[in-house]
């Protein structure tokens, strides 16, 4: 109970800290809407050329999938590795290492706190705009609502574990940005940033289905028809990847602490 109270408190405080800088929020909103408009107009044109259906999926469903993906990006758990790298490079990590909460847990909370307000704001306003201008796709709400929430949470936990592992590599390599770049591109491509998931060729669909990078963004697949048949398998895949990355992160974190302690960060 104490841990939950602490987590909520820290996330709330970091959220407040972020809200004070209104410019960042405005930039997030601008970034989101400009990306959405460009991509939506482009795909509206492509779908029009194909009589409104590509790979058996209509424009409305595809655009909602991309909107969910963009909202996840606004939460921005991808910044976690950068936060850790900056702490390690600046030496600030030592300030958090003698606190009762582990540095990694605190970094998770900081990351969530920093992106949460923009995420909630943009998702809420964006959903209303999407509903008004694009319409709402046909969904089985009994399956969609609980599985969307569950897969979204599992995806974010998996994301924190993956980006946390990359961040901790900064204890061993000076610059983790190349590793971040590679992983990030996998996450973006397999999440449907460049090409909507509905347009993926079969091998990419398989890759997005089985890889941990695709599993981060399973929430963006919840609007498709296949979700109703696949959600159990997909949730299991997310849980398996979470377990794998918990083990990897635990080992890397242990080694990182030893490395910092032995060599002085």
């Amino acid at each position: 109970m104490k841990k939950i109270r602490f987590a909520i408190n820290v996330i709330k405080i970091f959220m407040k800290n972020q809200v004070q800088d209104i410019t960042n929020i405005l930039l997030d909103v601008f970034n989101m809407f400009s990306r959405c408009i460009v991509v939506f107009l482009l795909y509206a044109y492509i779908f029009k050329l194909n009589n409104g259906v590509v790979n058996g999926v209509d424009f409305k469903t595809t655009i909602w999938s991309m909107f969910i993906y963009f909202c996840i990006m606004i939460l921005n758990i991808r910044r976690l590795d950068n936060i850790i790298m900056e702490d390690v490079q600046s030496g600030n990590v030592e300030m958090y290492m003698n606190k009762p909460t582990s540095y990694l847990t605190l970094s998770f909370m900081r990351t969530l706190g920093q992106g949460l307000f923009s995420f909630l704001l943009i998702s809420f306003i964006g959903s209303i705009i999407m509903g008004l201008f694009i319409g709402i796709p046909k969904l089985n709400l009994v399956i969609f609502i609980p599985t969307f929430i569950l897969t979204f949470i599992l995806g974010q936990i998996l994301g924190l574990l993956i980006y946390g592992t990359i961040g901790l590599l900064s204890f061993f390599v000076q610059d983790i940005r190349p590793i971040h770049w590679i992983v990030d591109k996998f996450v973006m491509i397999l999440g449907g940033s460049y090409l909507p998931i509905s347009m993926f060729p079969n091998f990419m669909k398989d890759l997005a289905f089985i890889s941990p990078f695709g599993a981060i963004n399973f929430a963006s697949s919840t609007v498709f028809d296949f979700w109703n048949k696949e959600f159990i398998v997909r949730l299991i895949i997310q849980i398996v990847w979470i377990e794998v990355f918990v083990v990897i992160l635990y080992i890397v974190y242990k080694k990182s602490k030893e490395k910092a302690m032995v060599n002085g960060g």
Partner: protein
Amino acid sequence: MNIIEVKNLSKEYKYNVKDEKRGFLYNLFNRKEKIVKAVDDISLSVKEGETIAFIGPNGAGKSTTIKMLTGILYPTKGSIKICGLTPIKDRNKLSFKIGTVFGQRSQLLPNLPLTESMEMFGVMYDMDKESIKKRIKELSDLFELNEFINQPVRKLSLGQRMRAEIATSLIHSPRIIFLDEPTIGLDVVSKKSLRDLLLKINKEEKVTIFLTSHDTEDIQSICERCVIINHGKIIIDTLTKKLIKDYVKNKNIIITPNVEFIKFPKLPNGMTYTKKTKSQIIVSVNTEKINTQKALQELIKMYDIDDINIDNESLENIIRSIYEEN
């Protein structure tokens, strides 16, 4: 009772050294390690409520020692007990007993008022809402934070921010506070106010103070005991007053003339001019060669004097000469 007990503590760092005569590939596969002893077999104990200055030149091993004492770094050898706990093994428990302030870093949230950071750390230290509120009130009164406690931290002056940093690190009422150069970059007024506050928390809350600083005024006004470290070894561990008494070799005699000084006669052995003007002379007296009374008599014979002042050598000079000797 000893609150800090350190025995034969050592810390070695390893790093790779290149063979400059060989090429990149050779160095890639034939790495040679060099070992540096940052801390070399030091032992010390600190009693509860003591104020300790842990000083030394850059690279002497001060920060490494503090990091080992606070559980951030593993010692290579030796043992540490802080409040009866081993920092590396009982890091979590220890964090409730100690507070840390690193002068060049900030643990406060820049965009929010100070109270928010204090609340966050209060929750981190398992304090309930009421205790946090009460403690914030106590610390605000003690550190005179009320005038800026509701301002965003980024808008505070450096002096205010340092007061806030120290107050925040005391939120959980630690028994020891480790301060790594807390007055760095502060103006004279802020330095004085911070020193007074540190003395106040030592007296009123019985907090043991373990401080590193390059500012001798910090040491002289806050710390009753001085531990000097150089090349990883403790070279002096004594009371600050005793350090000044034992190591003062020179006294400065400042003389002002009745009219004005025209001639500057040669001084006896052990006395040298450090300033020669028409309106003032400063003579440095080496007390090992000539005692102060004798030196004064000599000067009275030589000059028509209106006023005399005698100053001890500054602590800064004493410490500098100790570093140079070692």
